């Protein structure tokens, strides 16, 4: 194949999201947002062929369409009520957005400010409380900033490690925050006190930049690897098969 253009930041993020579903097995990949959606489809087309994907509505896609396209094969039916009950089975790995997230992985999409009279009303808690207690959960933040990575979230929707532990066995039994992926790097909670740790830096990003954009003390190991770049085959799949319209570049600045 001809020499491809170097991967953009958005394409690195797509691969980082896809990696969250590596080894996930036969579970529903439930991505929210453009880059995670491309990532889930890329994982299915490459290293996680057993993943289940939805068409964004009530059907499980039997093949992998381009963004905005329709699957030509339907392999299952998953209306909202079944989707909600599937969560309780644990056979799902969701990647949600976060208007705010703290060092323990508590996430907020409900409102900014005092809940009683918010400065900015957002979506509401949606399914974040049930998701985080029942199936592996990752987060995607397309614009890493101190306004998003905060010391304390205004309303805990998705439950973090500290809150899950405090709430007792029923809350922590299946609780698992897998990754946080932003436009700057990849993060996890594999630290003794389950606080957020820098796992890898996207190409061209430095540690200082991440620290500056993070509103809490971030664990940074002595050696931080680079997020892996897409392979030529992955780049071709992203650019030609999954997102020929280039929607990923609208979500992440290059």
């Amino acid at each position: 194949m001809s020499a491809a253009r170097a991967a953009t930041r958005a394409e690195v993020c797509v691969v980082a999201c896809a990696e969250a579903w590596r080894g996930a097995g036969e579970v529903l990949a439930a991505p929210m947002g453009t880059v995670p959606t491309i990532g889930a489809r890329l994982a299915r087309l490459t290293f996680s062929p057993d993943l289940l994907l939805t068409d964004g509505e009530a059907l499980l896609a039997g093949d992998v369409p381009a963004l905005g396209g329709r699957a030509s094969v339907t392999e299952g039916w998953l209306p909202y009520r079944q989707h909600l009950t599937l969560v309780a089975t644990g056979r799902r790995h969701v990647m949600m957005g976060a208007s705010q997230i703290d060092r323990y992985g508590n996430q907020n999409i409900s409102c900014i400010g005092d809940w009683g009279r918010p400065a900015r009303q957002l979506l509401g808690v949606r399914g974040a409380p049930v998701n985080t207690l029942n199936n592996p959960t990752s987060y995607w933040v397309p614009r890493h900033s101190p306004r998003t990575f905060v010391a304390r979230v205004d309303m805990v929707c998705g439950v973090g490690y500290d809150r899950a532990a405090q709430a007792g066995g029923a809350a922590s039994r299946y609780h698992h925050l897998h990754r946080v992926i932003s436009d700057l790097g990849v993060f996890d909670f594999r630290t003794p006190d389950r606080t957020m740790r820098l796992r890898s830096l996207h190409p061209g990003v430095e540690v200082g930049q991440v620290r500056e954009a993070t509103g809490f003390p971030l664990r940074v190991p002595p050696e931080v690897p680079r997020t892996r770049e897409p392979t030529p085959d992955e780049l071709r799949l992203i650019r030609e098969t999954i997102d020929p319209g280039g929607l990923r570049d609208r979500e992440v600045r290059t």
Partner: protein
Amino acid sequence: MTADEAVGRLASGMTIGIGGWGSRRKPMALVRALLRSDLTGLTVVSYGGPDVGLLAAAGKIRRLVTAFVTLDSIPLEPHFRAARQRGALELTELDEAMFLWGLTAAAQRLPFMPVRAGLGSDVMRVNPHIRTVVSPYADGEELAAVPALRLDAALVHLNRADARGNGQYLGPDPYFDDLFCEAADAAYLSCERIVDSAALTRAAPPQSLLVKRPFVSGVIEAPNGAHFTSCVPDYGRDEAFQKAYAQAAGDPEAWAGFTERFLSGDERDYQAAVTAFRTREVRPAAAHGEGA
């Protein structure tokens, strides 16, 4: 019966469940009838979309029970946002699954359902009335006890129904409409078309029969009655209209104009105004490569 007759059976202060999800298959003709009524102080239970936005803007809602309010293709509902930010309504904010199991408990005539959701989240902080329950079995797990969401009335919109109240959905998702009906003391079902019972399964499988007549108090034929939300396969969401709605909602003067134009008359006036909107504003724009 008509939408106005259905709403005539409701009373101020009631708890009303509204079917559909976000900006999908909302019983908008019934919601518009609610807007025309003098009912106030409602507790609205809804996976919220423009039903919540319109009722909030009209000051009809005292308390809202929900997990979210969204227009789907427009993530944030402008009237709901404004109402929350000016403290205009009380909110019972539940997780999507807690909401489902609350409705289920009501339908099953149970006081609560145990749920692995809410624990550790601020849903428990902002709903101090929600208790937990300890499993009586060896695991001893302490779970959220989501109280039943019993409704005085439910409003839902389906594709087809017979006159006795057997309701049919023809799209891919039932949402929770049968559950809303079963959780309610009275349910009013609007539909695109009332057909003979025999016609219901002539072209669709029996499992498309979602709502059973013992749970329905009145059937309303309301063509285009979910507009501007979707009612597939009969029609998709009217994105151009929804955009106009959201834009108007951002400005009091524009909203007054929108209300005057679309919501000052009855359902027939509304549908005529929508037809005029589409003819004058959407089609010319579409000819220039914009719009729906």
